[in-house]
């Protein structure tokens, strides 16, 4: 089965156990499995149907790079301006963290530093690495070798997806402070350009994570890879039932 031209990263045929190998695509909205050749949109919900997300790696890479570029003004420009009687003080994100730390609010400083610096940088690294891994360069030491463990890579992808939204904390901190502290000449806080830039960074990284198709990580797994090495979570709220390994219908 020739692969969908939407992704050039699978020049080899899809693995036999996948839906793509049979020309079946799972709708990204309603998860219904339908043949791609017959219809371009899902018969149930009408969303566009593709074997793999279209130009997944290119879109992810482009959005990640744009977010990284936007991250620079978000950190250089001031995020908040505090006007008190006679003095005007402009804070950048990092400057705010330092101020919080020095004034003793260690918890607040840690939260904002984590959300505004650590999480975005880790997201950039993770998304870049996922793009390389989906292309088959998962290991730095042996370029070209299929070293990546797709389960770990998928876990990284899931964590990136879930954690990414929390770096918006700083934007909301600014929004609330600006909304509440409006006391004329005694004290007034106004937002700086970095707030919107940082919101843009978060939005772009979220779009980048949603553009990435985790199935690309599994497309490269060879038959010798022990994908059955499952380590299921320890406590499960519901009993789990393993389902049949392969679809038995042969039509």
């Amino acid at each position, binding site marked *: 089965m020739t692969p969908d031209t939407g992704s050039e990263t699978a020049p080899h045929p899809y693995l036999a*156990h*996948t*839906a793509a*190998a049979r020309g*079946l695509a*799972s709708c990204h*909205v*309603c*998860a219904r*499995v339908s*043949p791609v050749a*017959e219809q371009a949109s899902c*018969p*149930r*919900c*009408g*969303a566009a149907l593709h074997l793999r997300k279209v130009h997944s790696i290119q879109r992810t890479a482009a959005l990640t790079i744009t977010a990284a570029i936007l991250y620079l003004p978000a950190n250089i420009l001031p995020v908040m301006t505090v006007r008190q009687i006679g003095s005007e003080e402009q804070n950048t994100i990092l400057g705010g963290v330092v101020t*919080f730390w020095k*004034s003793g*609010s260690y*918890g*607040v400083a840690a*939260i*904002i530093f984590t959300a505004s610096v650590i999480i975005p940088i880790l997201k950039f690294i993770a998304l870049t690495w996922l793009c390389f891994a989906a292309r088959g360069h998962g290991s730095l030491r042996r370029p070209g070798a299929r070293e990546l463990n*797709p389960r770990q890579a*998928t876990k990284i992808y899931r964590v990136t997806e879930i954690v990414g*939204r929390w770096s*918006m*904390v700083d*934007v*909301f*901190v600014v*929004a609330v*402070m*600006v*909304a*509440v*502290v409006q*006391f004329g000449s*005694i*004290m007034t806080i*106004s*937002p700086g350009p970095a*707030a*919107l830039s940082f919101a843009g960074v978060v939005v772009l990284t979220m779009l980048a994570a949603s553009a990435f198709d985790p*199935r690309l990580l*599994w497309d490269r797994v060879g038959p010798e890879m022990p*994908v059955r090495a499952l*380590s*299921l979570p320890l406590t499960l709220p*519901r*009993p*789990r*039932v*393993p*389902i*049949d390994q392969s*679809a038995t*219908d042969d*039509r």
Partner: protein
Amino acid sequence: MPRTRPSKDPIATPGPAREIPARFLACEKCDALFNYPEIEVGESAYCYHCGFVIFSRRPNAVQRSAAWAVSAASLFVVANFFPFITLDVAGQSNGIVLAGSVHVLADQANLGLATAVATFILVVPAFLIAGMLFVLCPLLGGRRFPGSYWIARLIYGFSVWDFTEVFLLGVLVSLLKLFSLASVSIGVSFYAFALMVVCVTASLTCIGRHELWEYLERASK
């Protein structure tokens, strides 16, 4: 499970090519193909290859999800009409409503930020709640409104852009800072908003994506 009637799917056409794919399910992480799992209510099926859960049947999914959505709706209304935070500095008092934060930002000619904040904490949750009610309430009787498919698509599309819990964390962080500045009083809206976040999350997770689409497909118009 809600009482369902056999539906006349308008796009169904007889023939083998149409029937086969409806019996399959593909893992969304590794694309492994499986027969449609026949599991009991309360069980979940995991992918044999990658180990991630791909399908689950939750007990009383529609009823619970609708109940949470109704609670979320009432809490949202309360959260918007009562004061959120009130700050007292040197005799002056400034209290804001949730939408007030957007007003202030817009007044300061920060339209971009105002739009972003308004979208993430007001428009999107309102749409999610209204959408869930629109889709779930008819399902309680085994029916579905016209346009439910569109709304369900939009719900799952926009659920990622719901930043209400992040907003709560931001409010908590700024409260810590504001406590040192002046006397702060937290209004009813804050607690209502916090509970609303819980209700919206519960409503979206009480019914699985597959399940909702199954119910929608089987419901009659």
